[in-house]
């Protein structure tokens, strides 16, 4: 299924544990070549289970998946995939460099790649120290270095900023952005809305095991809109409806919400002023991804939806 630039595709992918627990429910996911895809959902929504199925670590109960045109876990596709699933798991008694040596041997990549990967995540200075002595941020960076050893076409990162302090999160986001800036495709799972909003081109939203939306961040937020505060409101509404059509105007909390391109703001302002309406506010209005997400999943929260 590596056709037309589709790198990951699932069809009704389902994972059930026992009769009562549905971890992933008929998920249809599509990741295209070259994009940074955000896989967004609260903790326990089924993100990690889906990623594990894509890597062949767990078997789906039903449905199919294809990664780089091959079944999940196929050695030929795994050789082109770098993955960091859940927390970075390495051998505590080995140094960072030796851990990468082990991974390089498993992956069958030349050991020369090790130093380049360490350099890329800025871990060269601590590479000789044991993994057990690493901070969480360093462990995450080593995890990313391990995914880069194969110079992969597809990078799967599962909550890579988990547990990092704000500076570490910013560094990690920069790193992910740089990794996804070329031709490489990144599938990034996260429960942090801001992170996904900043980094990703497209987003898949999963809730209670079901993929409830998949589109660009802009599409997900909804079309462009304008907010107008004006006096008298009735006359303002009448004028705008005449201009845009009645179905594209709503009155909310004493303001008008217009389903209109922000580029039309000047024309709308002229129309209102010409009709002797006093315009006190006229600005583009965007819903944040958080608002959209909470609406979709019926949750309350701030930024972190977990």
């Amino acid at each position, binding site marked *: 299924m590596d056709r037309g630039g589709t790198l990951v595709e699932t069809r009704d992918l389902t994972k059930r544990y026992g009769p009562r627990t549905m971890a992933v429910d008929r998920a249809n996911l599509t990741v295209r070549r070259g994009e940074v895809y955000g896989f967004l959902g609260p903790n326990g929504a089924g993100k990690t289970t889906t990623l*594990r199925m894509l890597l062949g*670590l767990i078997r789906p109960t039903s449905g199919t998946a294809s990664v780089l045109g091959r079944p999940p876990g196929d*050695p030929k596709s795994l050789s082109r995939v770098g993955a960091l*699933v859940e927390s970075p*798991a*390495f051998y*505590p008694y080995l140094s960072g460099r030796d851990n990468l040596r*082990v991974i390089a041997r*498993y992956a069958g990549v030349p050991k020369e790649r090790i130093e380049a990967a360490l350099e890329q995540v800025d871990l060269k200075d601590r590479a000789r120290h044991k993994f057990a002595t690493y901070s969480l941020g360093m462990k995450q960076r080593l995890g990313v270095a391990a995914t880069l050893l*194969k110079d992969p076409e597809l990078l799967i990162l599962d909550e890579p900023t988990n547990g990092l302090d704000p500076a570490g999160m910013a560094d990690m986001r920069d790193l992910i952005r740089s990794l996804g800036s070329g031709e490489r495709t990144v599938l990034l799972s996260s429960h942090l809305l801001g992170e996904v909003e900043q980094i990703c081109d497209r987003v898949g939203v999963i809730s209670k095991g079901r993929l409830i939306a998949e589109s660009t961040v802009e599409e997900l937020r909804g079309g462009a809109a304008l907010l107008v505060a004006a006096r008298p409101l009735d006359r303002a509404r009448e004028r705008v409806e005449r201009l845009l059509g009645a179905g594209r105007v709503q009155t909310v909390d004493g303001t008008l919400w217009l389903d209109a391109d922000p580029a039309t703001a000047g024309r709308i302002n002229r129309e209102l002023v010409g009709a002797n309406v006093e315009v006190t506010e006229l600005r583009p209005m965007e819903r944040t991804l958080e608002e959209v997400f909470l609406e979709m999943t019926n949750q309350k929260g701030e930024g972190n939806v977990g």
Partner: protein
Amino acid sequence: MLASFSAEMLKLYKRPATWILITIPLVLNQVFSYLVPYTSYLRAENEGVAERILTNRLPEDLILNSIGGFPMFGGAILLTLGALSVGSEYGWGTLKTALAQRPGRLSVYAGKLIALGVVVLAIVLATFALGALSSSAIALSQSEAREWPSLADLTVGLASGWLILMTWCLFGVMLAFVFRGTALPIGLGVVWIMGIENLIVNVAAPLLDFADELQKGLPEVNAGSLVSALGRGEEITTPGLNTLVDGTQAALVLVAYTIAFVLIAGFALQRRDVA
């Protein structure tokens, strides 16, 4: 598979626990096969007893002195090595790291088994080498002749020692894959080796006919019988050694156990999800 083997060898080589578990059987062998008997020989007052102790420490008895401790004590240590090498991967979550690379489950599994086989072979060879040095030193110090086992006997001894330790190591590997951890497999395995088999052999078998037959199929009994079959027919008092079955049957039973452990562990790895 070669790539996986190479990764496994690096992990085993760099892991301190591997070296501890290699050293312990070597030290135990030297202490209880040579140091303690030789000290008792030097202190023995009865000339006949002294002569017998000395004779049994000379190069001629290298095979028995090298692998005599394998069925029980060596087995417990190698079971621990096998269980650790697999169980830790579950504990640290590194199995998913390895499988998310390229090789595939069976390749990772085969690489691990071959690497453990190499370590077991190294332990057996080191045991024989140290035994050869110690028995030579004893022979020289007592001006005794240094008569070595034939090359054929040495080869059979080495192969038997490897088979016995490998059986226990694979028992540990299998338990670790089945229970996906370290502590329970080691606990259960050691209790089996040190306790349950002894209870069957020493308590149940003398009382019950079916237990008497059952004991002839137990791994430790067969390992003990295999070692005994390589001796010179003298009475053997080493714990774990016996003459309940003949050497050929013992070797075949151990091979059967080895195959069974490999298949069960491989099935568990291949069929189950890796969390």
